[in-house]
């Protein structure tokens, strides 16, 4: 009798397969854990590209690993334990990170409070590369920890791998936002991130027979995985090929750079003395023995305090905002000059440094990326010490002599209204006497040096009337003599009248070695920009002991020698007009129109994208039609009946009636009854197909197919319009 009994219901699972299943489960969980941890670490490290050094990357990677490890270790414990342990771990890790990045200048408590209170604004405003400091590492470490904790909870505790990928993805997006346009595209990061996410999802993916859109399966051998595998490989190949082909073209359509959060931040404000540092020249000239700072330098150099490019007829001011920076100033070359500075009486916020500063230590720094001058937000104080390394700017005089003026920046050639007539006269004189921009620049420096005298007692002022007085007033009236403020300011304005881009620099002449820099070494000088050469310093100051020639003598002589306009037009062809715009548009100038002609018009790409989008509903409809055809026409009668049942359920789901997995055929039919569409004998047939061997005949399969084909028409009016259109 026992032989006729059905197989035993409770079969003791052999130990070996159970161990194998357990091993496979552990392998899957371990793979998901590793992938998500690496995703969190990678997403956190994305922000590390704008930080100085590798410290931040190491910190966020460590945070991701530690947070995930805590969550993983407590995955089988009560849910409330994980957040508690994770919060404790986060606090300890943040404390360690703050201690590690602190310079020890303030007590630890102060550092912690300051870091926690100011973390967000300082992280967003710090100039790139950001220095890893307590206040700039707290946010990335916190977010990495949080993302790893949530990823572990979602994916490991609750088994929702896709949801577990969300926190690292958000962290990745936050990292990209923080980086903005300040780093090269991290293609490798993105690819690695996607590969990790795909791996985590792949190892936890349901096998084909458990997927909702699987083919009909009736009692019999397990379905073959080959079609699903082939489909996955083909789909992946098509996707990769599409990305490879369309990606570059789509990328070309994007012409804007990512937004930079730093643009929304209020920059450090300057005081009056820093806004118009040129007024300091008069004071320094009057008290030349005043000790400003002690400098120990590696070479002779001009240390700049301020660079002034904008002139409104009253004051010279700097262009651009100062941004908080770390020890490393972005965009500098390799440092070949160093200086240790100790402040004595130099006030204000502007920091003296040789161009071009590369690193500054022991002093909080903000930098003006336009002029590359430095500022310390708290201001200089007696006793302040810092070290600055610079990449000295070396200009090639020979190249400058033949170079054209660099007119790319309109601010450096802007001339205010109402310039004194003497300035135009001098400009005409220089234009007449000299040909090349460099010759004109040097000629102007020579002219001022030969015709005007240095007078430390000259009253301060560099507005247009003051400069007119300096240039044109008689010597007896106090004119024609001044400080470097007057010389540099007058030179810069006249140079702009000539057509040369100019600016005024305030700084110090600092010799090599240790020395005390006094006010006598402080002066202003003009600089002219040459194309391909950069800014070149000129010295309009008279030589020591030289007797100035009255300028009116030279200028009157020039007027007598100047030819008439007709003569000038006939004989002036020898001199090349270096400011002629026609010369700028030579053969190597690339205009945008030519660039567009080289590729397909933009509308073609838009049309292609629209066509692709339009193809999506068509592809979905075609997929459904093919699936229905396959389900209803292929396989044994039992498989076709099961396919018809699957079609009916899927159509009902489109109409908004979903049948839960625990419903049997009778219950499913009861649920489908709300759609008022007849499914006839299908429930009975599907039970026979699924649970009775050979109980379904060919005519049964045909009857089931008829029901399945008629069903979509019956419920079509109950399917939402967008579903009907899109799927």
């Amino acid at each position, binding site marked *: *009798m026992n032989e006729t009994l*059905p197989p035993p219901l*409770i079969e003791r699972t052999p130990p070996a397969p159970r161990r194998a299943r357990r091993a496979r489960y552990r392998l899957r969980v371990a793979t998901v854990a590793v992938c998500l941890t690496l995703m969190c670490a990678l997403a956190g490290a994305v922000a590390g590209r704008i930080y100085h050094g590798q410290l931040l990357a190491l910190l966020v990677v460590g945070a991701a690993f530690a947070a995930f490890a805590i969550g993983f270790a407590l995955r089988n414990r009560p849910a409330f334990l994980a957040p508690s342990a994770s919060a404790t771990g986060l606090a300890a890790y943040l404390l360690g990170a703050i201690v590690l990045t602190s310079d020890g200048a303030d007590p630890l408590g102060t550092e912690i409070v300051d870091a926690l209170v100011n973390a967000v604004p300082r992280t967003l405003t710090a100039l790139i590369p950001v220095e890893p400091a307590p206040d700039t590492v707290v946010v990335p470490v916190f977010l990495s920890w949080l993302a790893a904790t949530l990823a572990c909870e979602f994916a490991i505790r609750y088994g929702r791998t896709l949801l577990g990928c969300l926190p690292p993805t958000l962290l990745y997006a936050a990292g990209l936002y923080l980086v903005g346009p300040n780093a090269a595209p991290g293609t490798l990061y993105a690819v690695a991130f996607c590969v990790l996410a795909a791996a985590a999802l792949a190892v936890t993916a349901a096998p084909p027979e458990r997927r909702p859109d699987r083919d*009909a399966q*009736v009692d019999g051998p397990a379905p073959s995985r080959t079609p699903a595998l082939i489909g996955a490989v083909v789909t992946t190949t098509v996707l990769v090929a599409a990305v490879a082909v369309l990606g570059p073209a789509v990328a070309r359509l994007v012409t804007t750079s990512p937004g930079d959060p730093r643009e929304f931040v209020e920059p450090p404000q300057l005081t009056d003395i820093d806004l118009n540092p040129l007024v300091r020249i008069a004071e320094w000239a009057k008290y030349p023995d005043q000790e400003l700072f002690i400098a120990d330098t590696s070479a002779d150099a001009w240390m700049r305090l301020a660079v002034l490019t904008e002139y409104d007829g009253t004051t010279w001011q700097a262009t651009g905002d100062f941004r908080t920076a770390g020890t490393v100033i972005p965009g500098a070359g390799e440092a070949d000059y160093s200086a240790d500075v100790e402040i004595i009486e130099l006030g204000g916020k502007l920091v003296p440094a040789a161009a071009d500063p590369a690193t500054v230590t022991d002093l909080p720094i903000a930098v003006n990326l336009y002029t590359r001058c430095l500022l310390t937000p708290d201001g200089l104080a007696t006793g302040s010490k810092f070290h600055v390394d610079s990449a000295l700017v070396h200009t090639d005089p020979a190249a400058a002599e033949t170079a054209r003026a660099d007119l790319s920046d309109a601010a450096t050639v802007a001339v205010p209204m109402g310039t004194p007539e003497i300035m135009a006269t001098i400009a005409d004189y220089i234009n007449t006497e000299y040909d090349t921009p460099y010759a004109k620049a040097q000629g102007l420096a020579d002219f001022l040096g030969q015709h005007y005298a240095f007078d430390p007692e000259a009253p301060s002022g560099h507005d247009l009337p003051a400069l007119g007085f300096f240039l044109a007033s008689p010597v007896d009236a106090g004119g024609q003599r001044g400080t470097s403020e007057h010389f540099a300011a007058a030179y810069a304005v006249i140079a702009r009248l000539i057509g040369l881009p100019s600016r005024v620099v305030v700084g110090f002449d600092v010799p090599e070695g240790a020395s005390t820099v006094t006010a006598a070494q402080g002066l202003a000088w003009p600089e002219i920009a040459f194309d391909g050469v950069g800014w070149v310093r000129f010295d309009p100051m008279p030589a020591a002991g030289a007797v100035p020639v009255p300028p009116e003598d030279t200028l009157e002589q020039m007027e007598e020698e100047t030819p008439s306009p007709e003569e000038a037009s006939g004989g002036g062809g020898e001199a090349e007009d270096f400011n002629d715009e026609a010369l700028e548009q030579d053969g190597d100038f690339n205009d945008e129109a030519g660039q567009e002609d080289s590729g397909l018009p933009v509308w073609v790409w838009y049309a292609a994208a629209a066509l692709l989008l339009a193809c999506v509903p068509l592809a979905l409809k075609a997929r459904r039609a093919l699936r229905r055809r396959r389900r209803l026409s292929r396989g044994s009668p039992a498989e076709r009946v099961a396919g018809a049942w699957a079609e009916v359920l899927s159509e009902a789901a489109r109409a908004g009636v979903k049948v*839960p997995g*625990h419903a049997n*055929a009778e219950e499913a039919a009861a649920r489908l009854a709300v759609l008022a569409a007849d499914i006839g004998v299908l429930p009975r047939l*599907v039970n026979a197909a699924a649970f009775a061997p050979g109980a379904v005949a060919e005519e049964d399969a045909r009857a089931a197919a008829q029901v399945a084909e008629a069903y979509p028409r019956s419920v079509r009016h109950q399917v939402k319009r967008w579903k009907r259109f899109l799927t």
Partner: protein
Amino acid sequence: MHDTEQTHPLRVPRSMQQQQVTLGAAQAESFATAFERLGAAIDTVVLGKQEVVRLALTAMFAEGHILLEDVPGTGKTTLARAIAAAVSGQWRRIQFTPDLLPSDVSGVTIFNQASGAFEFHPGPVFANIVIADEINRASPKTQSALLEVMEEGRVTVDGNPHSVPQPFLVVATQNPVEMDGTYRLPEAQLDRFLVKLSVGYPVEAAEIEVLRGTHQRSPEHLPSVVDTDTVAQMAEMAKHVYIAEPLYAYLVQLANATRNHPQTAVGVSPRGLIALTRAASVFALSQGRTYIIPEDVKALAGPVFSHRIQLAPDAAMRGATGAGVVADAFEQVSVPLPASAA
């Protein structure tokens, strides 16, 4: 003999008893007809309780035992007696009382002075159908006397085994309301009942009909519809109902769901699973089918599983029931239908 096997639709051929053979549709139809005839006969005595009657018959053909639990006067004993009357076999009734002894149930060995030997006098349990009325009024010791015979179909007295006639069916009744002087059935014995049914009050129309013909509808007047041989044949036939492979997994998952349910202290045992399979087989045949479908499982899981589930004390205090646990289990396990999750 060969011809008899061919012509008798309710007889399982000997060859089928040796191996797993799928039944034919004609045999299933014959089974369904006989089942329905039997049910219709009992329906004439127990009015308005067709579902309970069919479940009781299902248990009988599944070679299981029936526990009827309900308040007094709802027809428990009537149903038991009607089943006994409809089957033309030997039936006995035991009225369980606190002073009932185990030997009163199983029988006793007496020394016969005439023959000078000990003779075994069988107890009332030696019958095809035994009605154990008010079973919870007997002492646990007496209740346990039924354990062996219910499971193994034999009684051991003084070391000598005595087989009871086949088919053997115990129909026990108990009253859940009056608990004074009763002894709750032990779990081991509850597990031996294939189904536990509640007759319940009849609907209004049926109750009026009951009042109209009380005297005419006594089980004593019920003619027998089938004999014990036929019952045995039908029970044998039920063992050859086809069960698809996915249904085995479905059944085990259901049992696991009851075992892992938070309100459960002890879930359904493997014996309970086997009972459900046997009952579902009979139920499928009674519908004229030679194979089990999930609907059969769902129809029988409540009566078969509910009394085998031991609730956790706190869940019992909160009013949870075994039927609720079974319903939850069905919500958790997917039916092995194609694309049922689509």
